[in-house]
């Protein structure tokens, strides 16, 4: 995997080689609560006898110490670990610092556990090649999340928002005793939406969710809301739209489209939300 020089990005896994700005020109601790301000961390020793070494800056937070979060610097032996950022994290945990804490499971980009912010954008650590990262690579937790420890975010609120859109089939028609029938064309409409792994890279990368995340549902929940709205077997479309039509729950989306840019599965939450708005418009006229 290499970085792209293209001006036009075709898929979300493309990592641009050139960047004008690595971060927005705001103070490092712009609007950050004192307890969340990141202090300088420690530099961990280089591995002995390693020839190919890469520097990683990793966000750390220890809830038991009561200290502020900090950024530690690790030097990773690239010949001793796999090709992905997750492999580097596992190597660090095995060889350098066993207290480094992160979620992981499938290591193949289907479970969503290892979602984190790598070099300023949200992605899965297990599908981001180390050679695609900056020098030094910067590994932070998913943006705008309460942090339990190190790279582990508290997903309680975003999961509650997901639960609120009622992600299950709602029917009044009694159980037919066999499958509820669905035409192939109708099943096709779910493609691009059912594949969401709920990693929350999109919601965590949405500036509107940063400023209004308590009330704005965010792209992940709204993408799933759309998935249920267009499921032909579902009979609660009207009620679903009633609950979505709210200046904050739905209409805080201003089509910023960080979500579509960052989805590690190549899905399109921005489009889903536009379709929801269009469906609401359609029932008005």
């Amino acid at each position: 995997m290499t970085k792209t020089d293209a001006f036009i990005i075709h898929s979300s896994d493309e990592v641009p080689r050139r960047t004008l700005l690595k971060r927005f020109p705001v103070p490092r601790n712009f609007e950050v609560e004192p307890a969340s301000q990141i202090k300088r961390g420690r530099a961990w020793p280089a591995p002995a006898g390693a020839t190919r070494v890469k520097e990683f800056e990793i966000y750390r937070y220890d809830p038991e110490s009561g200290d502020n979060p900090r950024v530690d610097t690790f030097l990773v032996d690239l010949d001793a670990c796999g090709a992905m950022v997750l492999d580097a994290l596992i190597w660090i945990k095995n060889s350098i610092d066993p207290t480094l804490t992160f979620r992981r499971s499938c290591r193949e980009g289907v479970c969503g556990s290892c979602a984190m912010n790598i070099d300023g954008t949200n992605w899965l650590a297990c599908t981001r090649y180390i050679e695609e990262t900056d020098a030094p690579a910067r590994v932070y937790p998913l943006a705008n999340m309460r942090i339990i420890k190190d790279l582990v975010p508290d997903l309680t609120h975003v999961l509650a928002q997901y639960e609120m859109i009622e992600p299950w089939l709602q029917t009044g028609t009694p159980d037919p005793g066999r499958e509820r029938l669905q035409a192939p064309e109708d099943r096709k409409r779910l493609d691009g939406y059912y594949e969401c792994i709920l990693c929350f890279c999109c919601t965590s990368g949405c500036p509107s969710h940063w400023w209004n995340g308590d009330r704005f549902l965010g792209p992940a929940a709204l993408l799933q809301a759309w998935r249920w709205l267009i499921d032909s077997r579902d009979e609660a479309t009207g009620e679903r739209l009633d609950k979505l039509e709210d200046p904050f729950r739905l209409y805080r989306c201003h089509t910023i489209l960080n979500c579509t840019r960052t989805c590690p599965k190549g899905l399109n939450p921005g489009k889903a939300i536009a379709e929801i708005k269009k469906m609401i418009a359609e029932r008005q006229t």
Partner: protein
Amino acid sequence: MERYRIETPKARAAGLGSARSGFGHWWVERVTAVALLPLVVWFAASLIAHAGSDYETFVHWLGTPVNAVLMVLLLVVLFWHTALGLQVVIEDYVHSGAKVWLLLVTRFACFALTVTGIMATLRIVFEAWAAS
């Protein structure tokens, strides 16, 4: 409006429930945007064509019925679109009690500016009539 509350995640996510509205604002913002397309093109073209012209030329130009009507339409639609856009901006960034007052002041200011602009336009129209 940050105060300490003990609430379940479900209650926090649900808030005060859905307002069951929001489409109206979204729709009118787009309608005014579409209406603005021809109006601002007319306005920009007029500015480009008449840049630096003197007082009499300007009064004569604005005094013609077509331009006067378009200017009034521009003022109405522009400040309507502006009021809606600024409302969204304020709702996004202001979460204190000042939000309501800011929203009111912005809306009132847009209305007052519309009326002021229309009155000024009408005054110029009468000037043009008187001069002709």
